[in-house]
């Protein structure tokens, strides 16, 4: 295997190069061929990444003579990029399979979808600043185009515009960060990562780079407080695109954070570097999870949960950064391993959930939770897959979500070894917030499944829902199977991340991660998912056996008891569907207990006067604190500034001339002063 490390890289580079060609094929009208091609290429990508990771091959690099004049593009494949590429290619395969099912609604996305995947692959393969930025920005633009698919709806346009604005801010920060990182030597500027590693930044330059990376890549990952674009954009995009954006694109952004902060900034950074990531991650996790209990659109719920999970992963990355700086490689490996494990787990189950939400949209015609219900009867495969995804989302053992969060908590619990009472207390509070987020996510998962997929249908359309086609079912089943496997064998995922860990924190999980077992310390105790699964299976079998032997068999069907309420009237064959709990009512206790403080949630009951026949209305409003505290002030300042600047347009001719003259003089003075220095 090790004889030809370049084979894997060449193959993956070819995949990344051929994908945009498929975009052209699709643009020429051959939509199905393009999707088939994308399916094959992404499948090939999975094989190549798996081959690289299984063989534990040495890192390889490749120079492509296109791009900047004289420099070309430098690509490289190492453990870290292969780990994220594997996730990307898996989700890409599932997205292409889903798209095969329906070339009516999804056809409009066909030219950009392969380009989007190719751009993400380029970002992951990049080994110089130029190709990284090129891939990252192409990824932003392609996904912007994909979000705009249903551009005739005004909310979609608004969401896409917000997304583009955030992407522009991200680009405006990531490019200067790259510029500060590169080193201008006597032989000119060398953009290659190898040269950057040789001259790690320090002092104020390093701090500015940290801030720029957090804004630049963090805004794309959905790190608080720059997560506001995520729920509307993910809800607006077609579902297989949302699956890619949520499952893969946020992870690519996290990869950029890891690549820049761990790899390119060198190992000499102070301990506090991890703190911003931990704090922003924990805060974002709680915000996202709480909003997931309040949103009424199933895809917005999933997007908010993405904000939560990205927060959890970022907190893990932050702890790893701090632990590496404090020279605690075992802790750093645990935290980083946990972050990578959860990134893989989340990528898989969130893609699954988005594909399932797309199936619900396809089969029942709406994303609004309060117009769905009872899908378990009409869409059994979709509901089954959604149950697997929701179990992961709620972090129930023995799913992959539990394995990821268990390791993250273990890392946090080991965190106080970093020392310093302030830092210890901070880690304790971060762990507390993460636990709150995890519990909120469990409530959100129950709300999502309980309201949208269980209960009685709330609309005739939902009552007549139909199952999606076989290709879409296959994609969901595949992702569900992968999620279950990742949950049962988290040690395998961690050994796939071994090269990435060695590269970022200098130590692998070693014997702390094996096939059957993961452990925070080098001892026998820990979490053994297969053992828990077997125990659970034995218990269920035992209970079923005893009940079968001791209890009366069979059952009768009757009307729901519902505390003795009468049978529904004939004109409402399913009973009045409004009498069941909906999304708003399920989230009401949490909205009152936490939402009032955190989201500024307000409720207003519009009660008709006695004698009036109109219906009473309940108006519920809530606002993300990032919008209220960060974006609205910025928008106000921008408005005030532009109003000030506007006044310059309406000056008299004399004043305009004197202003121009004054600026000219000022400019000359500055030049003189600069030359004097």
């Amino acid at each position, binding site marked *: 295997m090790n004889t030809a490390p370049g084979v894997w890289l060449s193959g993956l580079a070819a995949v990344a190069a051929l994908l945009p060609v498929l975009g052209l094929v699709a643009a020429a009208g051959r939509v199905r061929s393009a999707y088939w091609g994308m399916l094959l290429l992404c499948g090939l990508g999975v094989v190549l990444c798996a081959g690289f990771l299984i063989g534990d091959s040495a890192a390889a690099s490749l120079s492509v003579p296109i791009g900047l004049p004289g420099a070309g593009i430098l690509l490289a494949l190492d453990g870290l990029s292969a780990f994220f590429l594997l996730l990307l290619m898996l989700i890409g395969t599932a997205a292409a399979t889903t798209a095969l099912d329906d070339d009516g609604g999804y056809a409009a996305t066909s030219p950009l979808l392969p380009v989007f995947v190719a751009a993400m692959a380029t970002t992951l393969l990049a080994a110089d600043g130029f190709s990284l930025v090129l891939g990252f920005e192409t990824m932003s633009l392609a996904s912007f185009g994909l979000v705009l698919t249903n551009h005739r709806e005004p909310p979609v346009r608004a969401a896409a515009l917000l997304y583009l604005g955030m992407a522009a801010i991200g680009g405006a920060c990531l490019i200067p960060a790259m510029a500060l990182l590169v080193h201008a030597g006597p032989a000119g500027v060398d953009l290659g990562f190898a040269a950057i590693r040789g001259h790690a930044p320090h002092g104020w330059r390093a701090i500015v780079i940290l801030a720029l990376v957090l804004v630049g890549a963090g805004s794309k990952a959905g790190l608080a407080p720059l997560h506001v674009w995520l729920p509307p954009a993910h809800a607006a995009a077609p579902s297989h695109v949302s699956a890619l954006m949520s499952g893969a694109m946020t992870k690519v952004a996290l990869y950029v954070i890891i690549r820049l902060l761990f790899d390119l900034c060198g190992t000499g950074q102070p301990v506090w570097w991890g703190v911003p990531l931990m704090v922003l991650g924990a805060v974002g996790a709680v915000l996202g999870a709480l909003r997931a209990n309040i949103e009424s659109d199933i895809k917005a719920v999933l997007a908010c949960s993405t904000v939560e999970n990205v927060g959890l992963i970022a907190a893990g990355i932050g702890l790893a950064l701090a632990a590496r700086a404090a020279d605690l490689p075992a802790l750093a490996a645990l935290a980083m391993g946990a972050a990578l494990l959860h990134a893989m787990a989340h990528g898989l189950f969130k893609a699954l959930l988005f594909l399932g939400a797309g199936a619900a949209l396809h089969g029942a015609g709406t994303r609004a939770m309060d117009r769905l219900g009872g899908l378990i009867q009409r869409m059994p495969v979709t509901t089954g897959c959604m149950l697997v995804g929701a179990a992961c989302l709620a972090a129930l053992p023995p799913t992959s979500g539990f394995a990821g969060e268990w390791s993250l908590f273990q890392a946090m619990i080991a965190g106080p070894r970093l020392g310093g009472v302030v830092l210890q207390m901070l880690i304790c509070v971060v762990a507390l917030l993460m636990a709150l987020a995890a519990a909120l996510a469990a409530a959100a998962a129950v709300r999502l499944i309980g309201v949208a997929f269980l209960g009685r249908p709330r609309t005739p359309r939902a009552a007549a829902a139909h199952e999606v086609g076989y290709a879409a079912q296959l994609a969901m089943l595949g992702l569900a199977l992968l999620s279950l496997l990742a949950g049962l064998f988290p040690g395998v995922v961690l050994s796939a991340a071994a090269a990435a860990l060695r590269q970022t924190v200098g130590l692998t999980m070693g014997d702390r991660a094996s096939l059957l077992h993961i452990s925070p310390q080098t001892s026998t105790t820990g979490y053994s998912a297969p053992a828990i699964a077997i125990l*659970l299976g034995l*218990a269920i079998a035992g209970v079923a056996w005893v009940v079968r032997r001791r209890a009366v068999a069979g059952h009768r069907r009757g009307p729901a008891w519902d505390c003795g309420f009468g049978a529904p009237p004939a004109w409402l064959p399913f009973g009045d569907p409004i009498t069941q709990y909906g999304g708003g009512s399920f989230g009401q206790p949490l909205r009152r207990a936490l939402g009032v403080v955190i989201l500024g949630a307000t409720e207003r009951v519009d009660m008709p006067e006695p004698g009036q026949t109109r219906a009473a209305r309940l108006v519920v409003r809530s606002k993300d604190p990032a919008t209220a505290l960060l974006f609205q002030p910025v928008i106000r300042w921008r408005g005030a500034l532009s109003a000030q600047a506007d006044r310059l347009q309406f000056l008299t001719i004399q004043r305009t001339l004197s202003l121009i003259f004054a600026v000219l003089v000022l400019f000359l003075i500055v030049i003189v002063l600069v030359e004097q220095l």
Partner: protein
Amino acid sequence: MSAIIALIAQALHIALMLAAAPLLIGLIRRVKSRLLGRTGPSPLQPYRDLQRLLRKQPVLAGNASWLFAAAPAVSFAATLCAAALVPSFALGMTTAPLSDLIVIAGLLTLSRVVLALAGMDIGTAFGGIGASREMTFAVFAEPALLLVIFTLALLAGSTNLDAIATLLREGSLGLRVSLGLSMVAVVTIAIAENGRIPVDNPATHLELTMVHEAMVLEYSARHLALIEYGVALRLLLWLTLIGTVFVPFGMGDAAGFPPLWITGALAWAAKVGVLAVGLAVFESSIAKMRVFRVPEFLGIALLLGLLAVIFLFVSQGFA
């Protein structure tokens, strides 16, 4: 050989937990009745109730899905797994390496989530109200529980329940403020997690005040039997957990001399009995609180848990 003895201890432990759970409920009901001036039913009444339920044929709502019918068994199995991981009379049983506190909390969450989903399955208002409130209480209980786990893990160097209990049984850590605070926090969490007064009233007959009972309102016969048995088992699990962590004295060793298990079992019975009587007295002397006051009640646990960790950092200079 020792592995076989550990396995025997494990089997005995599971059998004991299963056998004692209904008795615990009966005991608490009996003590509460006495405190209220009634004679009350025999402590063995819960066993008879379970038998009666098993003799009936369940009635499912017309639109009940497979999830509704499967949920009680899964929920009970998850509670049983968690109960198997919490040592009662002996440490070092077969499942000792698996008995991670976060895993136990996860299994209990699994049990709760499955029932909450089943509560939503029929599409009645009561099922929804119960599921929503049950999940809301958990949102406040789980962070507090994590803080307690945090404290214990800092003291014992592991989140493994068996390791923690072994260390605390040696008594080398001594009395600590953090442990005391954690114990109060755990008791508060246990009251909420088991739906006892003042958080929820397991004996209520007024639908609007129900939480857990509302969630499982549509269940009958064998399904209901499994749910009630699961509730009893969960209460026993929590009392055992409190006893094992905070009063680990008298526990035997699974690898040790089997007759010593008898003293361990007696100590366990005494601990659980005292806690059960204490719970009955506490429940008789307090009123149920409004649903929206419960987050405040659990906020106390959260604060105590946080204080416990901070005390540990400040007193120990933990590094």
